[in-house]
């Protein structure tokens, strides 16, 4: 048994090593130079946070592609609009008639945007992210889309800690008879926490709404727990 275990370990380690060797330069840098863990007693206001949102061709993580990605940085209680991240990808062939166009309004390959290719986007994004805490609404999907894209280009997955504002909202006010599950959509929450809903369904616009939501939720959580928030409170 013990021997079997050791054998398995060496095998996976080797596998991992082989994989690492194939990583693109930008991912290797991201993986080795950046600290992704925060001590649990670290004050939350001292933790760098990136709010992230993607617009995609659809909801199938394996099939669909990212069309645009927006991100904003939050320090303490402020959102810095000067340090925004915004990138558009050309619509891949075969996705021009995607139903999602109606939602996000990104016309395939419209001349309104300047496009980058996926590796450039990934490289820039990882540099922008560093070790920040990633926050987003139903962020699991965006992270899965990004991980899928990273994998396609031979890179490993995102290593950042991820927080979903929908989960946070649910924690503050669990769903039940009074708040059915669909009440945790970004629209519903923005309404509940009185955040104006303009620029919905643009990556950056959603980021901004999510960012304000994040700050409002945190202040309520702090009241709930009765002390300054630390990483372990999340």
């Amino acid at each position: 048994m013990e021997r079997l275990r050791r054998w398995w370990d060496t095998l996976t380690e080797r596998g991992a090593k082989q994989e690492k060797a194939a990583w693109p330069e930008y991912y290797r840098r991201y993986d080795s130079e950046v600290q992704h863990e925060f001590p649990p007693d670290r004050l939350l206001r001292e933790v760098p946070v990136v709010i992230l949102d993607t617009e995609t061709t659809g909801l199938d993580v394996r099939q669909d592609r990212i069309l645009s990605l927006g991100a904003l940085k939050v320090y303490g209680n402020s959102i810095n609009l000067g340090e925004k991240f915004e990138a558009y990808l050309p619509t891949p062939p075969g996705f021009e008639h995607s139903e999602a166009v109606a939602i996000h309004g990104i016309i395939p390959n419209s001349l309104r945007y300047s496009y980058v290719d996926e590796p450039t986007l990934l490289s820039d994004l990882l540099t922008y992210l560093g070790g920040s805490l990633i926050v987003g609404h139903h962020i699991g999907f965006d992270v899965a889309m990004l991980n899928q894209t990273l994998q396609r280009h031979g890179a490993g997955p995102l290593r950042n800690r991820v927080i979903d504002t929908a989960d946070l909202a649910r924690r503050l006010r669990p769903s039940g008879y009074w708040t059915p599950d669909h009440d945790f959509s970004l629209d519903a929450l923005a309404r509940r926490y009185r955040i104006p809903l303009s620029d919905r369904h643009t990556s950056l616009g959603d980021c901004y709404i999510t960012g304000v939501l994040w700050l409002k939720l945190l202040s309520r959580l702090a009241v709930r727990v009765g002390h300054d928030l630390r990483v372990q409170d999340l």
Partner: protein
Amino acid sequence: MPNQITYRVYDFLKDIAPFSYLDQESLLRVASRVEVRYQPPGTVVFRPGEPPRDRFFVVKEGIIELYSEDADGQEMLVERCGERDIFGIRPLLAEDTYVFLARAVEESLLYAINSEGFRDIIPHHPRVLEYLATSMAGSSRYNLEYRAARRQKTDDDNGQLEPDLLPLQSLHRSREPVVCQANETIMEAARRMTDHGIGSILVVNEEHHPIGIVTDRDLRRCVATGVVSRKLPVLTIMSSPVACIPVDATVADVQIRMLKTGYHHLVQTEDGTDKSRVTGIVSEHDLLLLQGNNPAVVIQEIGSARSAGYLRELRDRAERLLSGYLEKEVAIGYITAVMTQINDEIIRKCIKLGLARMQADGHGNPPALFDWLTLGSQGRGEQLLRTDQDNALIFEDVSPSRYNSTKDYFLKLADYVTEFLNEVGYHYCDGDMMASNPKWCLSVSRWKDQFSEWMHENTAENLLNTSIFFDYRGVWGDGTLPDKLTTHIFSEMGGQSTRFQASLAMAALQNPSPLTFFRNFVVERSGEHKDQFDLKARAMRPLTDAARVLILQAQQGNINNTLRRYEALAKLEPQNARVYEEAAEAYELLIRLRAELGLKRGDNGRFVRPEELTQVQRLLLRNSFNPVKEIQQLLEIRFQLTFLR
């Protein structure tokens, strides 16, 4: 390419001064660097003594309150900033620490503007600098801000920054004076006038000081009729002395002076008296040419009007004059002086019409000397728009047997006069504070008794009457009776004063300074004017009430005008001069604002909806509340009101 959020921030900022003064490109650049700050309720944005940050704040949502701390660490509310208000702007201009504590009252979102980026923009946008400088400046900030705001509106794109301030400019261009010596003959003087094509000649002594003036009119009167020989020295026919003005007199000064003295020519001398060299001469005609429209013309017309209907027309014309003055930002002191003259002239005309009517009805001439008193704002000489009439009548003491018939006559007269005034557009007073009310048409001794009663019995109603009746001013009649009343009031005050003054001061505090806001303003909670701000009761009343009690205490009975009261108080109490000057400035601003709103809406401008004000007007209005508060604090201490409350 600017993104959607930048555009959203831009959209929000573009209507707010000073951002509104920036061009789109610059503002987009500012917007793209904005930091959005979230402040949960009760959290602090900055504290006094903290070093300045490289940013200042605009409230996007919520309310931020600024507090100052006194020596005991007590917090005092200084300002309440609502949506679209700017605060924490000091660091942008002065490398100074924060003075106030800024705290969120409710959940708030702030746009933090990076001052570094903003500072780069200032040199290219002089108006921004001006705005910032004025919003920072000390005592004279209200008027300056006002000017900056108005300038923007009238400005065109060629960057011309000087508004049309003609009436405020010094009359540098007063004509080169044509002079003669006192011993020259009338004929010589007349020839010189003809040569120069002028209508008047100044008579000067050897030192070139003015001693008299000879006009066309004097020549016609004395010479053309052959009454006086043309070979006599001008000395014999000149008008003397002359009215002088200093070199730096403005058109406004000249006009007031002419209205007051009735002179058609004013002499400009080096020091403004007739004991210095003549430098120029200004005639009414010169002024007319300078100004185009002249209140003197309106006043003249009023004098020759034959019906209330025509008076109404003239008052409408005066209103157009007023709106022109407001537009040109003529000094409020001047505007009120002119409008008061016009109002007075209309009242006088109405009295004359009333007297003629009494004659026609067979009631004959007034059975006793009387004076017509105007009360309230017209009494104080600060009424700009037609408001309800407040007036009273005082007649000399007559024997008891004649009292009733005398009073009857004056009541009938007052009926006519108030009716005429009503036709002109000064509506009947709701509270019936008019000379046609038997209560307010009294002999001198009964008025004295009435005032004594008001001063001794400090009921709420009496205090209200006090606030209206104490600002009386005689506009027509014998002219001596109001002074008798004033003398009486001060002799009464000698004995019984303290309690009366204290209650008056109390009354001035009844409307607390409007610092508890709903979106910056205390609005009326109910009634016809729900959700409107009562400009008169909340901001102007406390200032007039305070000025009245302070001036009564200072025993300066003949100063009736709020602005002049504060002026006088500033001289009497140099240690409080700043408070009084700021109060006067705030009051000026309020008069102006009220007149502008009233003209725009065609009413008396008393109630304001916060949303109908421009942002700058709101800022100015809010700033004017600080002096209200300071004055109220001064009253509280001086009359020791904390013990009474």
